[in-house]
């Protein structure tokens, strides 16, 4: 197991390096530059070029970039907040995004599990059909549509919630109210995913022989489903829940924009439009890192929660 984890960590570092290279090239080769639409004197441009090595060939710039990163220097922002180190910029934004995303994840899992189990146990009844219908809607309609709809009906027409996120408010009711709509918009799709997955898993487990055996050996229907059905269906659920976090992160890029949340998403879009390259690359790296780590967690967690791998692999 230790050997396996080390192997995976090495692979993770290599992958990150590749992503870094690709991100650097793609971002740098984008048309447009920081100087566009700005009336800067030639001397200033030259000074900036010299400072950030923009006058060197791309390959040389690349080595500067790698060298800096090895010293944990992610560069400085030149457009969004000039002269602020990118890492400090991220430090203020990441917690806000993570907060919204983690709350959405933790809300969607129990709801999804409840709805999925209900649909599986009441399979092919009205309840199941209704849940499945909602699942299709929640999965196929993108989250930003829900976001705008919620914003319009609940916040603008209904006046129940603030229209945009209140970044200034301290932790409390006011903050919670302003977070409600973005979190809600972000939960729809994960709830639907968990529901659909669990329904399929549990329905299959409920048809299994071992569930029948659990009943014939003297367990009630309820005990059999709880002890054998649920437990067994949760196992494969683990490997969709962890990557779902990455999914929510992706969805929140747009949602943050809609609700004016000062998180990573808004900053990423801004940094691209004003050609603040080091910020874009840093955010890309952050997202890549999160997805790679979640994948690693999935793989390792399998070895821990599934006895067939845990015990079988030990030998």
């Amino acid at each position: 197991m230790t050997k396996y984890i080390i192997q995976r960590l090495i692979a993770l570092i290599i992958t990150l390096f590749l992503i870094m290279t690709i991100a650097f090239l793609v971002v740098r080769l984008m048309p447009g530059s920081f100087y566009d639409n700005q009336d800067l004197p030639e001397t200033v441009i030259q000074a900036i070029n010299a400072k950030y090595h923009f006058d060197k060939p791309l390959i040389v710039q690349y080595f500067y970039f790698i060298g800096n990163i090895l010293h944990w220097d992610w560069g400085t922002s030149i457009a969004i907040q000039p002269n602020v180190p990118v890492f400090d910029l991220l430090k203020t934004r990441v917690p806000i995004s993570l907060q919204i995303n983690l709350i959405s994840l933790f809300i969607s899992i129990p709801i999804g599990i409840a709805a999925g189990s209900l649909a599986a146990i009441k399979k092919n009844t009205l309840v199941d059909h209704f849940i499945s219908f909602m699942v299709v809607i929640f999965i196929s309609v993108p989250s930003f549509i829900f976001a705008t709809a919620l914003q319009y009906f609940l916040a603008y027409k209904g006046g129940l919630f603030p229209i945009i996120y209140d970044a200034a408010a301290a932790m409390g009711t006011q903050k919670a109210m302003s977070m409600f709509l973005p979190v809600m918009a972000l939960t729809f799709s994960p709830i639907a995913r968990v529901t659909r997955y669990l329904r399929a898993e549990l329905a299959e487990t409920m048809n299994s022989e071992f569930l029948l055996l659990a009943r014939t050996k003297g367990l009630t229907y309820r005990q059999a489903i709880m002890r054998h059905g649920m437990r067994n269906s949760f196992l494969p659920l683990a490997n969709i829940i962890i990557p779902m976090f990455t999914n929510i992160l992706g969805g929140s890029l747009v949602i943050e924009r809609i609700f004016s949340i000062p998180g990573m998403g808004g900053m990423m879009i801004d940094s691209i439009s004003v050609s603040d390259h080091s910020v874009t690359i840093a955010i890309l790296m952050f997202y890549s890192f999160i997805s790679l780590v979640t994948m690693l967690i999935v793989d390792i967690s399998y070895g821990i929660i599934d006895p067939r791998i845990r015990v079988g692999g030990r030998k």
Partner: protein
Amino acid sequence: MNDDKKLLEVKDLAVSFNTFSGSVKAVRSISFDLNRGETLAIVGESGSGKSVTIKSLLGILTGNATIESGEIRYNGDDLLKYSESDFYKIRGKKISLIFQDPFSALNPIMKIGKQITEALILSNNMNKEDSKKRALELMEIVGISEPELRYDQYPFQFSGGMRQRIVIAIALASDPEILICDEPTTALDVTIQAKILKQIKKIKNERDLSVIFITHDLGVVANMADRICVMYAGKIVEYGTCDEIFYEPAHPYTWALLSSMPDLETREKLFSISGTPPNMLFPPKGDAFAQRNKYAMAIDFEEEPPFFKLSETHYAATWLLHEYAPKVEMPEILAKRLARMKEEGGTSE
């Protein structure tokens, strides 16, 4: 026959399944009884309704099944009138089931020990230590070596035969009166089959169990059964003691089944029953076996034969036994074999 010897009595049981294409008549009015301490074998090919019959005994039929008629008398109660919570009181505790496929019958991610003790703790209110002691005892009884070590292992660490032993241990956990074996050896190697059968027989004798043994393989029941019911297309076509079925079979279907069983002397091509069983969406008129029966008479296609009594314990449902029917002898291949078996003074295995 003394009535209080009868432990379980099935009368006119009929079960059908609602499917998209119509109602499938899986079991069509069958009756049999199980005496205390005996082994009753129900023999028939796939789809003859054996498994459906025993699933109705335990109340574990799937949702689309309807019990059309009949009653199942156990301890004076009609099991068919039982609610789910009534069944809870007899499942595992009075009537236990051994499954056909040990590979899918055990929960793959639960420790073996827990799977045995679970029912004891939950429904017999036994405490942890007692139930563990009992589980280890049971594992010993069913022939698992090193039960202490095995107790904490998972099903994937067991071979097929070992798993079936665990399934048997689970079935025995709450000391049932009736043990139903649903083709317990079908999924296993032939060498393991013999061992498992021996084990079941031994346990049966030691604990004075009554056993219902479901199989499609007459060879398997030869050494086990006291009485045999032969089922075809949802009906019992012949029943009698083990010797009567093996030495004096009267129904053409039983003849065919026996002829299709190889023995050590078999030199010629093995007999096979031509055709396929009838589609139970549309049960045939008359004798269901008539289409595949070379001895079929005109009446077989018109009217269902009643049971004809051959002896106090032996009945067969075929018009061939009617007093007006032409005298028909069993196939030569079978007659020869029976003669040989009688000479050797034992049933073949």
